[in-house]
């Protein structure tokens, strides 16, 4: 049934009770009843399927994995030999990058290796970055990017940062290239696109921990495996962006290409991709940022670098050092982000700035000179240790001071929220029998998007049930729901304020950038000191991490409201409050909803991290599976996280579409 039809019916006959509301009320009443009656009435199989009814998918996946690693054979070579060969190929660019940035050119391996040539001196790297900044965005960007890298040197993070950087400079281009190829294929072949879309959903929602073990088995232990995990996690946005950008290329351009007699290949390479370049660069930017998000997890399987520093510092409770290493990741992200954005925006200006070749020659000369000088003057090659700064003791002291002086205050807030919000919600969620939840989801899906959506969400929910992970899933939903609630409340308010007020936006933007790139482990441990191990700390971490998209999308939504509408409101004598309530908010609502959607996704992706502070949810299941090297169990729990994510995503998107349709319907009527 079309949305407009439902809407007009409701408008026409206001006296009649809306059947949807009745159904929702029935579901709510049943849910409350389940909450009130407790264990005595609801049969046990409605809480968790008995073991004999479950699918047993986990052991199936585990044995498939065993077969792949130990037996699978293509005749000439085994499956494992193939994956190892891929790893060896990927290792080549990584070796080159580490040689340049962190280790120098070496003969031999291990401790017996002899360094033939040192890596690039720090002065040269800072210089290159600043020069690129100048070229892409002028003196300001040169200062920002150069300053970021200078920070790394001055705060003693250089060696680790260069290790991390060398894996990023390899992983990101590979991710971008793979994403581009898949995106083009998806654009050209609708069938491929249809297969690709759910795969992308899974790549983005299955927690990385869930597929870490199979990657280790297939690709070996070390930086290459870490790089592959990074690419899996970071490439999907590039695929999506490529498909969207190619579809959005103006028809005139395509027609012009056709008239010029291009082959399909020329059409893509020479006409469409250049035309889609601005959007494609957004994807590039996303890949870089997501790659940096993976730094901590990558360090757990041998990538080393800044992520390893964060982990070791926090294990010794050296919060200051952990924070400095964490900030180094943020700084690296900011520098790469601003450079890639400036590159995206300033393509034309650059041409005006003169000859590219002169620039490159000058840069090469600079690098060569510093490199040569560095061979004789050690302080040019490596930043002298005596001049490094550290604010670590100060931070550790600050955290100590806060815990000693404010613990009782924070504890009171925590206790209040726990007793009045968290625990009741948790009990409510755990009391729900799965048939009721599946039915309610199917109904909501049907009302919002029709039969297909209903079948999808009910099917995904049943997948969780059939794998016997219902209770863990409900705890996950409870943690994320409250985290999203807080994040949305705070984030939308801040976002709207920042959207109305450009000066506030300039302060808010770096803050949310930091929240998104600072490894959550860095603030998780101080949070434990203040709030102890438990659900509250987990929810706090989820809220902080998931805040960013709520703020960003709300601000964008408000900023994008056409000036005309606001002026019309003003001329009609609306107060500022009325303009916000009647004009800006309703127009921005679909964008804000998209922000909420992203918030949900990020909240779910934090589940595995919150397992590190002791929650009993799907994240914990994934983590246990990781520590026991149980491929099947980890993947199944990961797929359940993905199922929840996809359910939430599809329902929210359907709601947003419906809202947009209603509004355009209303404006047509007016």
């Amino acid at each position, binding site marked *: 049934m079309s949305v407009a039809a439902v809407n007009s019916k409701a408008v026409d006959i206001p006296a009649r009770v809306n059947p949807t509301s009745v159904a929702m009320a029935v579901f709510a009443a049943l849910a409350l009843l389940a909450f009130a009656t407790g264990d005595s009435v609801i049969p046990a199989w409605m809480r968790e399927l008995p073991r004999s009814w479950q699918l047993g998918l986990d052991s199936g996946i585990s044995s498939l994995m065993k077969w792949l690693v130990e037996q699978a054979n293509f005749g000439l070579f085994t499956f494992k030999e193939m994956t190892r060969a891929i790893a060896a190929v990927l290792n080549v660019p990584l070796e080159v990058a580490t040689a340049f940035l962190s280790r120098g050119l070496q003969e031999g391996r*291990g401790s017996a290796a002899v360094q033939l040539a040192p*890596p690039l001196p720090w002065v040269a790297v800072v210089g290159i970055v600043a020069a690129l900044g100048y070229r892409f965005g002028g003196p300001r960007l040169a200062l920002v990017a150069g300053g970021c890298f200078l920070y790394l040197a001055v705060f003693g993070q250089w060696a680790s940062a260069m290790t991390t950087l060398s894996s990023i400079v390899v992983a990101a281009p590979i991710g971008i290239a793979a994403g581009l190829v898949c995106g083009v294929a998806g654009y050209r072949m609708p069938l491929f696109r249809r297969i690709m879309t759910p795969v992308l959903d899974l790549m983005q929602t299955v927690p990385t921990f869930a597929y870490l073990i199979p990657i280790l088995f297939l690709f070996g*232990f070390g930086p290459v495996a870490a790089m592959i995990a990074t690419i899996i996690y970071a490439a999907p946005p590039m695929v999506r962006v490529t498909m969207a950008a190619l579809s959005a290329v103006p028809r005139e351009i395509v027609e012009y290409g056709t008239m010029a007699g291009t082959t399909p290949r020329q059409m893509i390479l020479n006409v469409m991709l250049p035309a889609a370049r601005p959007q494609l660069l957004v994807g590039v930017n996303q890949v870089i940022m997501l790659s940096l998000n993976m730094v901590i997890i990558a360090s757990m399987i041998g990538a080393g670098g800044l992520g390893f520093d964060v982990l070791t510092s926090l294990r010794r409770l050296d919060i200051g050092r952990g924070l400095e290493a964490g900030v180094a990741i943020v700084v690296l992200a900011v520098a790469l982000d601003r450079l890639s954005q400036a590159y995206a925006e300033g393509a034309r200006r650059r041409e005006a700035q003169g000859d590219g070749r002169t620039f490159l020659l000058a840069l090469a000369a600079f690098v060569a000179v510093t490199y040569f000088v560095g061979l004789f003057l050690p302080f040019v090659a490596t930043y002298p240790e005596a001049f490094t700064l550290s604010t670590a003791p100060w931070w550790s002291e600050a955290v100590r001071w806060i815990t000693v002086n404010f613990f009782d205050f924070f504890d009171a807030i925590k206790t209040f929220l726990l007793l009045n919000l968290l625990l009741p919600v948790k009990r409510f969620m755990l009391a729900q029998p799965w048939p009721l939840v599946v039915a309610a989801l199917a109904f909501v899906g049907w009302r919002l998007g029709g039969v297909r959506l209903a079948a999808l969400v009910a099917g995904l929910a049943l997948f969780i049930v059939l794998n016997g992970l219902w209770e863990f899933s409900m705890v996950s939903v409870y943690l994320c729901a409250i985290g999203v609630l807080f994040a949305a409340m705070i984030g939308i308010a801040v976002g709207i304020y920042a959207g109305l007020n450009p000066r506030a936006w300039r302060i808010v933007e770096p803050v949310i950038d930091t929240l998104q790139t600072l490894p959550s482990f860095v603030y998780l441990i101080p949070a434990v000191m203040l709030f102890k191990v438990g659900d509250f700390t987990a929810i706090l971490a989820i809220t902080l991490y998931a805040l960013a998209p709520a703020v960003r999308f709300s601000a964008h939504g408000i900023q994008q409201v056409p000036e005309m509408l606001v002026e019309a409101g003003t001329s009609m004598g609306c107060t500022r409050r009325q303009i916000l309530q009647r004009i800006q908010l309703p127009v921005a609502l679909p964008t804000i909803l998209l922000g909420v959607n992203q918030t949900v996704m990020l909240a779910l992706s934090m589940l595995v991290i919150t397992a590190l*502070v*002791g929650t009993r949810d799907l994240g914990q299941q994934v983590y246990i599976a990781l520590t026991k090297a149980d491929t099947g169990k980890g993947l199944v729990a990961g797929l359940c996280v993905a199922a929840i994510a996809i359910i939430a995503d599809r329902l929210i998107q359907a709601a947003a579409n419906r809202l947009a349709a209603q509004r355009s319907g209303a404006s047509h009527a007016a």
Partner: protein
Amino acid sequence: MVQLPVKATLAALALAFVVPPPALAEDSKDPIKLTLHDWTGQLVSAHIMGEVLKKAGLNIEYVQADYLAQFAGLKTGDVHVAMEIWATTGKEALDEATATKQVENLGETGMLAIEEWWFPEYMKEQCPGLPDWKALKGCAEKFSVPETAPKGRYLGGPVTWGGFDEERVAALDLPFEVVHAGTDAALFAELESAYQRKAPIVLWIYAPHWAPIKYKGEWVAFPPYEPACYTDPAWGINKEKTHDCGKPRGPIWKVAWSGVKDKWPTAYTAIKGFNITNEEMGKLVGAVDLDGKKLEDVVDGWMKENEGRWKKWIGG
């Protein structure tokens, strides 16, 4: 492939120049990969072993790896040596790995893993009778928080560590609830915070570790562990339930890929010979974590003081 701080790499390189490795025909020239984990004690053991192997003229490489995820690498021979596998936390994974014959247990390190309920010294005033476990029965409320009230809160290790604390609480009829920390970083963060505020806490601590050196406190004295306690309900105070005793103490093992024996025979015997005590390790860890000394310097110091010992490991 290794990500060492540049300085350490340079030091290693300098060493390689200064001390030309004595030629050993039977050992492979490929680097032996030793895993590094995220706690200082293990970094010390691995670096001591690494330095000793270097002195024997072997080529080594340090690889950062997760404690349990590394077994995937040990089985396939991607990494070769893990210096600390604790009987208390890694036994399951180790047994599974050795059963495949791809991984070999090279014996005890000489260190003994202790894991037990632990409380800071100031709790003795608030709960007289400690460290005897029976005292906990009387003052559970001192340890309680809103989520567990009126029961006390005991902060256990991550679920993956096992430990049977729920069973222990039930068997000894302790009015406590077990709350699991997700990681040991979280565990010690809570201890640090409680210790700073002199707040009540009883939690899972293990040794060798810097925590029992840094904070004053004691292990709770449960009835000592015997294997029968975990299997035979009739054993001990509670005649109907098992686990009415403390936790077992267990060795810390050295573990290697089974190919090490043939590929680097010198290393194989050297790793087997490696031996260090809890006290020694405690001091080394304290020097790094509490006094803020550099890991390399601390390891160098140990190497100088114990030359006679490690030379025996490499048959010199």
